[in-house]
C-alpha cells in the first residue's frame, strides 16, 4: 500500500512519536527539531487528507485493518480535514517560534519537556479531530488536556500554576461529563463508532437516556470550549501560560472542542434531537449573546493585554456558537468559517504579544507581563509588532479586508435568513465593543508618549516572521475566501446531509 493510503494514521502517529523521542534526546535543540519535524509532517499529511477528502468526500481508515464498527475508524470528512489543517498548520508555525520565545520564559533544562508536551498536545488535538470513535475522542481529549495543563504550568509567574490547577479541575469535570455522555450512548446503542451510533440512534427513538447523553455531552464540551459562563478557566490560563502556548491553545484547543460539539450534534444526534427535542438552540443563542457582550465588555477594562485578548476570545467563541444555534446551513458555515478565521487571527495576536514581551524585557531577564503602563509609545519602539496587532485587531472587529469580516458577513446572512433582525443588530453592536478594546491598545501604543530615550528595538526576527505569516494569512483569508468559505460551505452541506 502506498503512503497516501496511510495518511490518516500518520497524521496522528508522527507527532505522537515525536514526543517520547524528544524526551529521550534530553536536549532542547534536538527536541525542537524532532517535534517541529513531526508537526510539519502532520501539516503535510493534513494537506494530503484535505485533498483526498475533496476527491472522495469521506476518507475512512481502519486502524489495524479491523473493520468498523468493531475496530477503531479514522474518518476524515470535509470538516475534519479543515480543522486538521488549522491545528497542524498552527503548530507548524508556533513550534519554530517557540525556539526563540521560550528561551526567556522557561528554564533551559526544561526545554525538551516543553517540546515533548507540545508534541503530545498536538497529537491529542489531531486525534480528537480525526477519530470516528466516541471513546477514542475521550482518550485523545485527555492526552491533549493533560499536556495542556503542563504547558500552562510552565509559565514563569506562580499564577500560572494556580491557573493550570484550576483548568485541570474544570477540564477534568468537563471530560468526565463527556465520558458519562458517551457511556449513555454506548448503553443505548451498543456501539462506539460515531457513524454506526448515529444510525442506531435513529431506531432508538428519543428516550430519556439519549437526551441525558446529549445534555451531558453538550455541557462537558461547552466547558472545554469555554462557552460563557463556563469560561472562568480561560482568562487566567491564557494570561499566565508561556506566549507560544497561549497562541497555540487560543488557535486550536477551544476550536477543536467546537469541532467535537458540531460532530456530536450533527453527525451523531442529528438535527431532530438537538434542535427539536431539547431547547438547546435557544440556550445556545442566549449564552452566545451573553458571551459576545459580557466577555467583550469585560475585555475593555483589562489591564493586561494578554488577558484582554483572552476575554476577547471568550466573546469570539460566542460568535461561533451563535452560528450553531441557527440550525441552518448558512449558520453552520458561519460557525466553521469563524472557527478557522478566529483561530488564525488569535494565533497571530498572541504570537505578536509574545514577541512584544521579549522585546520589552531587558536582555537576559524574564519578560514582564504586557500591562498597559508598559505599552506607552510602543509603536515607536516596535512598529512592526504594533502594526500587526492593529491588523489582527481589525480582524476581531470584522473590518472588511480581514478574515473576521468574512465570518461576520455569513453570520449576518444567516441571521437575515431566519429574519432575526434584532440579532443582526446585536452582532453588529457587539463588534463595536471590539472596536473599543482594540482601540485602547492603539491609543496607548501610538499616542502615549514613550519613556525618554527609547530607541527602535523590534522583537527578534525569529518571533516576528512566524507572527507576520499569520497576520498576512489574516488579510489573505479576508480577501481570497475560496479556500475558507469553500471548504466550510462544503463541510456544512455534508454535515447537514448526513444529519438529516
Amino acid at each position, binding site marked *: 500500500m502506498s503512503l497516501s493510503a496511510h495518511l490518516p494514521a500518520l497524521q496522528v502517529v508522527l507527532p505522537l512519536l515525536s514526543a517520547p523521542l524528544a524526551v529521550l534526546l534530553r536536549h532542547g535543540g534536538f527536541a525542537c527539531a524532532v517535534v517541529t519535524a513531526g508537526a510539519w509532517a502532520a501539516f503535510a499529511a493534513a494537506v494530503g487528507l484535505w485533498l483526498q477528502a475533496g476527491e472522495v468526500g469521506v476518507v475512512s481508515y481502519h486502524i489495524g485493518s479491523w473493520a468498523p464498527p468493531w475496530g477503531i475508524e479514522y474518518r476524515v470528512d470535509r470538516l475534519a480535514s479543515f480543522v486538521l489543517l488549522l491545528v497542524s498548520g498552527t503548530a507548524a508555525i508556533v513550534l519554530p517560534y517557540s525556539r526563540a520565545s521560550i528561551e526567556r520564559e522557561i528554564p533551559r533544562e526544561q526545554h525538551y519537556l516543553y517540546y515533548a508536551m507540545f508534541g503530545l498536545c498536538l497529537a491529542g488535538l489531531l486525534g480528537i479531530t480525526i477519530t470516528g470513535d466516541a471513546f477514542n475522542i475521550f482518550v485523545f481529549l*485527555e492526552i491533549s488536556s493533560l499536556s495542556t495543563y503542563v504547558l500552562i504550568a510552565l509559565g514563569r509567574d506562580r499564577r500560572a500554576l494556580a491557573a493550570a490547577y484550576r483548568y485541570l479541575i474544570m477540564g477534568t469535570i468537563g471530560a468526565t461529563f463527556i465520558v458519562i455522555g458517551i457511556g449513555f450512548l*454506548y448503553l443505548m446503542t451498543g456501539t462506539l463508532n460515531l457513524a454506526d451510533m448515529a444510525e442506531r440512534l435513529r431506531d432508538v427513538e428519543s428516550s430519556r437516556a439519549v437526551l441525558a447523553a446529549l445534555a451531558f455531552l453538550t455541557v462537558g464540551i461547552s466547558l472545554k470550549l469555554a462557552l460563557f459562563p463556563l469560561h472562568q478557566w480561560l482568562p487566567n490560563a491564557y494570561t499566565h501560560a508561556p506566549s507560544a502556548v497561549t497562541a497555540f491553545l487560543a488557535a486550536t484547543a477551544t476550536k477543536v472542542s467546537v469541532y467535537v460539539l458540531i460532530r456530536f450534534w450533527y453527525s451523531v444526534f442529528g438535527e431532530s434531537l438537538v434542535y427539536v427535542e431539547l431547547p438547546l438552540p435557544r440556550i445556545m443563542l442566549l449564552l452566545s449573546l451573553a458571551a459576545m457582550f459580557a466577555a467583550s465588555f469585560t475585555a475593555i477594562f483589562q489591564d493586561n493585554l494578554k488577558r484582554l485578548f483572552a476575554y476577547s476570545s471568550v466573546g469570539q467563541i460566542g460568535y461561533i456558537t451563535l452560528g450553531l444555534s441557527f440550525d441552518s446551513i448558512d449558520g453552520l458555515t458561519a460557525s466553521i468559517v469563524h472557527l478557522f478565521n478566529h483561530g488564525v487571527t488569535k494565533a497571530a495576536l498572541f504570537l505578536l504579544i509574545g514577541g512584544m514581551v521579549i522585546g520589552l524585557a531587558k536582555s537576559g531577564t524574564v519578560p514582564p507581563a504586557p500591562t498597559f503602563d508598559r505599552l506607552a509609545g510602543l509603536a515607536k519602539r516596535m512598529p512592526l509588532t504594533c502594526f500587526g496587532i492593529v491588523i489582527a485587531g481589525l480582524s476581531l472587529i470584522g473590518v472588511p479586508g480581514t478574515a473576521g469580516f468574512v465570518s461576520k458577513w455569513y453570520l449576518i446572512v444567516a441571521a437575515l435568513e431566519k429574519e432575526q433582525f434584532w440579532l443582526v443588530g446585536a452582532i453588529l453592536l457587539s463588534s463595536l465593543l471590539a472596536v473599543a478594546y482594540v482601540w485602547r491598545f492603539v491609543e496607548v501604543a501610538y499616542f502615549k508618549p514613550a519613556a525618554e530615550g527609547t530607541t527602535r528595538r523590534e522583537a527578534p526576527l525569529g518571533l516576528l516572521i512566524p507572527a507576520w505569516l499569520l497576520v498576512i494569512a489574516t488579510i489573505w483569508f479576508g480577501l481570497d475566501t475560496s479556500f475558507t468559505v469553500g471548504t466550510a460551505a462544503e463541510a456544512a452541506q455534508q454535515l447537514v446531509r448526513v444529519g438529516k
Partner: protein
Amino acid sequence: MELLAHFSHVVAVFLMVAGLYVVMARGNLIKKLVGLSVFQTSVYLLYIAPGKLIGGTAPILAPQYGLYSNPLPHVLILTAIVVGVATLALGLALAVRIREAYGSIEEDEIIAADNAAEEARP
C-alpha cells in the same frame, strides 16, 4: 424496591454528586483532588455495572461457557482509570508546586496572595 433494582445507578449517582460537591465546596487543593477522583470513580461504576451479568464469566469461546460479561466496558474503563491516575498525579504535582510558590494549598489564601501582589505592583 424500585430503588434497589437500580442499586448500581444509585451508588454511582451518589458518588458523582458527592465528588462534585467536594470539588466545589472545599478550598483545600488536595481535598478538591480527592473529590475529583471520587467523581471520576463514579463514572467507572456507571460503565462497568451494566456490562456485568450475574453468573457470567470472562468472554472465553468454549462450549461450557454460554454466559459471559461484556468485556468492552472493562477495557474502556481500564483506559479511563489510567487517565484518572495521570490526572490525579498531575494535580498533586501542581499542588506541590503551588505550595512551594505560595506557601499554602488553601484556595482563598492563594487568591488573597495574588490580590496582594497585584495591589503591590505600582
